[in-house]
Structures are given as structure tokens and as C-alpha cells.
């Protein structure tokens, strides 16, 4: 049985842990609101661009001469997995879920005899992937230098990916991130980003739109932008998901700490009582013996 002093020490240490988790929970709640509004603000651009891409894609037929970003390299041998993680921990299984999804896909692709490469965004998850796929990591992007990953970061990531693609380093790229459903639910998601999946063409009857320069040139110009927006969107979703996951995880941790404190306090009181009773019995026994 632990002594009274030990118990008291444990209660205090759990109490300070609870303070930390509670603070982190409140910070996450505030940041979540911000991340959600950032994700909302980004929606109009993505929607409009997707609309334009869809109406263009309906007019341009994919052939051997169409841009590589749309048509692909013609091969399907090397797959690049772009894994977007967060930089900070204390967010439950958020990062491991994304990594798990990526590893699953990697195993599936390797079973099909394809080469798998990794490109990592964010600090967390790096170690987990390195453990199994040390040699497959071809690059990464460090987001620790900025407070929040914004469009500039998405642009740099996209440009690097496009450069690698053009140099023929890979044929297909998949993006792994966590989709934000609610503060409680985040879904690890896989999305093919290169070659750009042709947006589902919306049927438009008023086909009298004039293009300057021609459709194909516009499409070539818009493809890298579309990619950037996709990555930007993923970063935003990831940021919101991270805060959501963090909030839930910290809420649980705070509650668990509370339970533990109650349990320890009861134990502490019981032992205190037991000690007093023993002392009393000793005194009474001593008095009777006289």
C-alpha cells in the first residue's frame, strides 16, 4: 500500500496534467473555429475553379498530345504518396490514422508490383513512415517554420511536385490527408492528384463562350493552379481536422484525469482513516493495559 505522502504526490501530478490537457482543449477549440472559417473562405475559389475546369474538360478531348498533367505519362509504375500530417502532437490518433491509410495503400501498390515513393508534409508521421519505408522517402516539406500552412506553402509543395513529375520521377501521385467531418469525426482520405482527374463535366447548353487564348492553352495554364488549390484545400482540411481531433482527445484526457483524481482521493482518505484508527486502537490498548 502506497504511503500517504506518495498518494498525495500522485494526486498533485495528475492534477497538473489535467490542467495542461484542459488548456490544450480550450486552445484547440479556439483554433478550430479559426481553421473552419479559413476552410470556408477558401471554398468559393475552389468551387469556381472546379466549374471552369469542368466546362473546359468537356470541350477538350484527352489525347496523346494533351498536357501530361491531365493525360498522365502513359505509365503506371511509380506511385508517389504525398502524406500530409500535422506538426504538433496531442491530437489523439489523428496522425497515425493518416499514416495507417498511407501504409495500407503502399502495401497494396507494392503487392501489385509498383514502386512506391513518399513525399511527406509536416513533422509528425515522419518517423512512423521512415521505420518501414526508409529508402522510399524522396522528399518532404517542412511546415514547422510557419504558424499555419497557407496558400504560399501549398504553392511551393505543388511546384515541387510538378517539377518532380516533369522530371519523370513518378507517374501517379496520391494525396493523403484527413477530411474534416465534425469535431468528433475526421476521415483519413486518399485522393489522386496527378494526373489531374478530369472534373466531371457539367452539361452546359450555352456553349457560345469565347476563349482567349484557346481552350487548350487555358487548360494547360489552369492545371497547375488546380493542383495547388487541391493541395491548399487538403492543408486546410488537415488543419481543421487536427484541431478537432486535438479537442476530442484532450476532452477525453481531462475527463480521465478527473476520474483518476477521484479514485486516488478516495484511496488517500481511506488510508488516512485506517492510519488514524490504528493509532487510536494502539492508544486505547495501551490505556487498558495500565
Amino acid at each position, binding site marked *: 500500500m502506497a504511503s500517504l505522502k506518495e498518494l498525495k504526490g500522485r494526486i498533485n501530478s495528475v492534477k497538473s496534467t489535467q490542467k495542461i490537457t484542459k488548456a490544450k482543449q480550450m486552445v484547440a477549440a479556439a483554433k478550430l473555429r479559426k481553421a473552419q472559417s479559413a476552410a470556408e473562405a477558401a471554398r468559393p475559389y475552389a468551387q469556381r475553379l472546379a466549374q471552369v475546369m469542368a466546362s473546359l474538360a468537356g470541350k477538350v478531348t484527352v489525347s496523346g498530345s494533351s498536357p501530361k498533367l491531365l493525360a498522365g505519362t502513359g505509365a503506371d509504375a511509380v506511385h508517389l504518396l504525398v502524406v500530409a500530417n500535422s506538426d504538433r502532437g496531442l491530437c489523439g490518433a489523428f496522425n497515425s490514422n493518416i499514416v495507417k491509410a498511407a501504409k495500407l495503400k503502399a502495401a497494396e501498390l507494392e503487392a501489385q508490383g509498383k514502386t512506391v515513393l513518399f513525399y511527406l508534409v509536416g513533422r509528425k508521421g515522419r518517423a512512423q513512415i521512415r521505420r518501414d519505408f526508409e529508402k522510399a522517402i524522396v522528399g518532404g516539406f517542412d511546415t514547422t517554420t510557419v504558424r499555419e500552412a497557407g496558400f504560399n506553402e501549398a504553392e511551393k509543395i505543388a511546384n515541387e511536385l510538378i517539377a518532380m513529375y516533369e522530371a519523370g520521377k513518378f507517374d501517379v501521385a496520391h494525396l493523403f490527408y484527413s477530411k474534416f467531418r465534425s469535431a468528433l469525426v475526421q476521415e483519413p482520405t486518399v485522393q489522386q492528384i496527378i494526373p489531374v482527374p478530369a472534373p466531371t463535366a457539367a452539361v452546359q447548353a450555352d456553349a457560345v463562350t469565347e476563349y482567349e487564348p484557346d481552350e487548350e492553352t*487555358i487548360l494547360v495554364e489552369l492545371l497547375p493552379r488546380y493542383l495547388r488549390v487541391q493541395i491548399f484545400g487538403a492543408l486546410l482540411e488537415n488543419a481543421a481536422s487536427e484541431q478537432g481531433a486535438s479537442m476530442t482527445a484532450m476532452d477525453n484526457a481531462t475527463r480521465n484525469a478527473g476520474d483518476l483524481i477521484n479514485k486516488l482521493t478516495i484511496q488517500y482518505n481511506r488510508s488516512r482513516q485506517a492510519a488514524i484508527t490504528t493509532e487510536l486502537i494502539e492508544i486505547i490498548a495501551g490505556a487498558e493495559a495500565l
Partner: protein
Amino acid sequence: MSLHFELVTPARLVRSEEVHMVVVPGSEGEFGVLEGHAPFMSTVKDGVLKIYRSAGAAPEEIVVSGGFAEVGDKGLTVLAEHVEG
């Protein structure tokens, strides 16, 4: 008698308002958009977007880069990656 004009960046909706005319630096030359312009799409080169709130008024200038302009029946929409001013 006014043109609905929207300027959107990936981070936010910068402008959404009724104006008289917008002059856009298209990649094949500047073009002005008034109300009732025919449907039109063009890439935009990095440059200055001039917004005329009313006829004859001094234009408001916004520097855009990485842009794309679309004129539809809903008005003019400029998608730009970066905006200054």
C-alpha cells in the same frame, strides 16, 4: 446598368460588388468588361486590374498575379492567386 464583379483568391473572397466597368489585363491584351458582355474566358497576365465604380470616375487599381477571368451571365469573376492593394 451595373456589372457584378467578383475577385476571388484561394484564401478569401476579396470583392463582390456592383461596378460600372472593369479593365482586365488579359494575356492577349487588355479588355474592358461592361454590363451585358458576351460569355468569355481568358487567362490574365500579372498586372493591374482597374475598377471603375461609375462612368468617368477615377479607377481603383488592384495588382493581381496568377489570374483568370470569366465573364458569364452572372457578371465578371476574376480568380487570382495573389492580390495586392
